[in-house]
C-alpha cells in the first residue's frame, strides 16, 4: 500500500495534489465530475471582501500550449461565500484553502478577519500575485518590501496557516520568497501566471479586452519548474509548486525539484477529472517502483 500523504508541518495532506485557485471555481462546480474527498486539497477561487464584477470579455485567449486569462477575479465576495458556499464544502474530508485577495492591505485583513470566524478552513493562500487586476499587471508580489508588509500584516491577524502565492514576473523570485519567509508565512506557492499579451494581426487589436493577461498551461511548465527548484533550494519553509502540471509525470518533476505539494490549474479546464487522474498516476508510479512513501521523493533530483 503506497502512502501518498504529505506533512507540511502546519497541515497534513492525504496526497500532494491540490486544485489551484481560479481553475476550480468554488469547488462545488466539480462535484458532478469528481469526489472532492479524494483530493489532497483545493483552493477556492480568489475572494475579496466585496463582490467583484471582473473584466469585460474577451477574457480568455488560447496560445501555443497555453492560455492567457484576464478574468479580473470576478467573485461573490467573502460574506456570500461564507453563507452560501462554505456550508456545502465543509463536510468534505479534504483540505479547503481559501485564496485571499485585496485591493489594499486593509481589504486582505478584512477578508481574513471574516474567515477566521468561519469553520472548516485549513489554510489561507495569500494572493499577492494576480497579474490581471491592475491594468499594468502590478501586484504586491513584484516587490520584496510590499510582499513582506502584506504577509506580516496577515500573519498577525490570521488564526490559520498562511501560504503566500508568488508571482513569476520578477527578476529574482528567491528574493521575494525569502522576504515572505522572513515575514512569517508558513509556506509559499508558486508560480502564478506570467504576464502576457496576444494580438490579432488582422485588426491589430489585443485579443483580450484587458490587453494584458496571465499565461498558464503546459507552455510555462519548464520555467515554473526552474523557479520552484530555485526557491526550494533557498527556503526552510515548504514550497507548493505549480505551473502547467497536466500529468502524474509533471507533478513528479515538481516534487523531485523540491516542492512538497503541487497545485493543478489549467488542466482542470481541459479535463475536470485531471486531479484524480494525476493522483492515480502518482499511485501507479510508486507501486511500479516499490516506493512505499511518496514523500521520500521530494527534493531528490540527482
Amino acid at each position, binding site marked *: 500500500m503506497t502512502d501518498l500523504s504529505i506533512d507540511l508541518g502546519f497541515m497534513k495532506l492525504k496526497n500532494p495534489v491540490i486544485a489551484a485557485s*481560479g*481553475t*476550480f*471555481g468554488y469547488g462545488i*462546480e*466539480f462535484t*458532478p*465530475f*469528481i*469526489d472532492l474527498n479524494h483530493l489532497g486539497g483545493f483552493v477556492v*477561487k480568489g475572494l475579496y471582501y466585496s463582490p467583484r*464584477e*471582473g473584466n*469585460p*470579455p*474577451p*477574457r*480568455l*485567449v*488560447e496560445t*501555443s*500550449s*497555453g*492560455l492567457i*486569462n484576464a*478574468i479580473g477575479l*470576478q467573485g461573490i465576495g467573502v460574506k456570500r461565500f461564507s453563507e452560501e458556499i462554505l456550508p456545502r464544502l465543509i463536510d468534505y474530508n479534504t483540505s479547503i484553502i481559501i485564496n485571499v485577495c485585496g485591493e489594499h492591505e486593509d481589504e486582505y485583513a478584512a477578508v481574513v478577519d471574516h474567515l477566521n470566524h468561519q469553520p472548516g478552513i485549513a489554510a489561507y493562500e495569500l494572493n499577492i500575485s494576480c497579474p490581471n487586476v491592475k491594468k499594468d499587471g502590478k501586484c504586491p508580489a513584484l516587490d520584496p518590501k510590499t510582499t513582506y508588509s502584506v504577509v506580516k500584516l496577515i500573519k498577525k491577524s490570521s488564526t490559520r496557516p498562511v501560504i503566500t502565492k508568488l508571482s513569476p514576473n520578477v527578476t529574482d523570485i528567491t528574493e521575494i520568497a525569502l522576504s515572505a519567509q522572513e515575514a512569517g508565512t508558513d509556506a509559499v506557492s508558486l508560480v502564478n501566471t506570467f504576464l502576457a499579451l496576444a494580438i490579432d494581426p488582422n485588426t491589430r487589436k489585443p485579443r483580450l479586452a484587458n490587453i494584458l493577461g496571465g499565461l498558464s*498551461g*503546459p507552455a510555462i511548465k519548464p520555467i515554473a519548474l526552474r523557479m520552484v527548484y530555485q526557491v526550494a533550494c533557498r527556503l526552510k519553509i515548504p514550497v507548493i509548486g505549480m505551473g502547467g502540471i*497536466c500529468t502524474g509525470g509533471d507533478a513528479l518533476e515538481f516534487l523531485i525539484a523540491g516542492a512538497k505539494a503541487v497545485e493543478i490549474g*489549467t488542466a*482542470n*479546464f*481541459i*479535463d*475536470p*477529472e485531471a486531479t484524480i487522474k494525476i493522483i492515480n498516476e502518482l499511485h501507479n508510479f510508486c507501486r511500479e517502483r516499490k516506493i512505499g512513501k511518496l514523500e521520500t521523493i521530494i527534493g531528490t533530483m540527482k
Partner: protein
Amino acid sequence: MKRTDQVIITDRKMWKDYVLLSFKSPQIASKALPGQFLMIRITPHSYPLLRRPISIHAVEGENIAIFFQKSGIGTNILGLRKKKELLDILGPLGNGFGLKGDFSHKKTVLIGGGRGIAPLFFLANSLADRKAEIRTFYGGKTSHDLPLKEKFEANGLKVFCSTEDGSFGYKGLITDYFNSEMRQFRPERIYACGPDAMLKTIADIAAKENIPAELSLESIMGCGIGACWGCVKRLKKDGVTGWFRICQEGPVIPADQIIWAEKDK
C-alpha cells in the same frame, strides 16, 4: 458522476467551410436537450490546448451529430478527424431552448445565421414532435454557407434561405427576410442562433413585436462547466446586471435578458 466520453466517429461529411461529424453515444443521446452543447477535445496533446464548445446538431437514437464551421485552428483540426477515430467529449452541458408547455399548432420561427443553424435542426425536430408549426430561416454570406438546407427539407421542414450576395434565395440579411415575412406568419415564439449582430436585430424585432425570443449565444469557453469564468456576457437577470457565465446561464438566453455590447448596436 458525469464523465468524459470516448466515442468513435461513425461518419463525416465535409463542405468547403463546414463539417458534420457523427458518433454513437448512448450516454449523451439519452440526456441531450436541444440547445445544449458538448466540450470536444481537439487532440490528446497540448496544442490546441482547450476543448471547443460545439452545439448538438442532431440526436437520432443513440447517434449524435455535431455541425461546425472551420473557423480557427481548433475547428480546422477537428475537421480533419476521420471515421473510426476516437473523440473525447464532455457533455451534454448548459441549458437548452425552452420547450415546456403546449406547442401543438403553435407558430414558431427558427433563425440560423451561418454555423448558427447547427442546434436548430435538433430543435426543429423536437418542435415537430410537439406538432408545432415551424418555419426555419437560414441565412449565409453566399450559397456555400447553406449546406444544411436539403437536410431540413428532407425532414419535412420548411426552409427560407437568404444570402448576402444574392447567390441563393432572398438577397440580403436573414433578419430582413424574416421581418418582411412577419405579416404572413407572425410567430408566437422565436428561436435563433448566429452572430451577435444578427441576434441583436432579432432581439429588437422580438421586443417591438412583443414575441418571446430565445437566443443561443456563442462565446470563447475555457472549461464549459462554470469553473473558469471566461465565457461571460452581460445580462440582466432577476434584477441583477453583471457578467454571467454563458456555460451556466445559457448558451440559450431569453432575448430580453441580454445587454448588448456597443459593437453589436
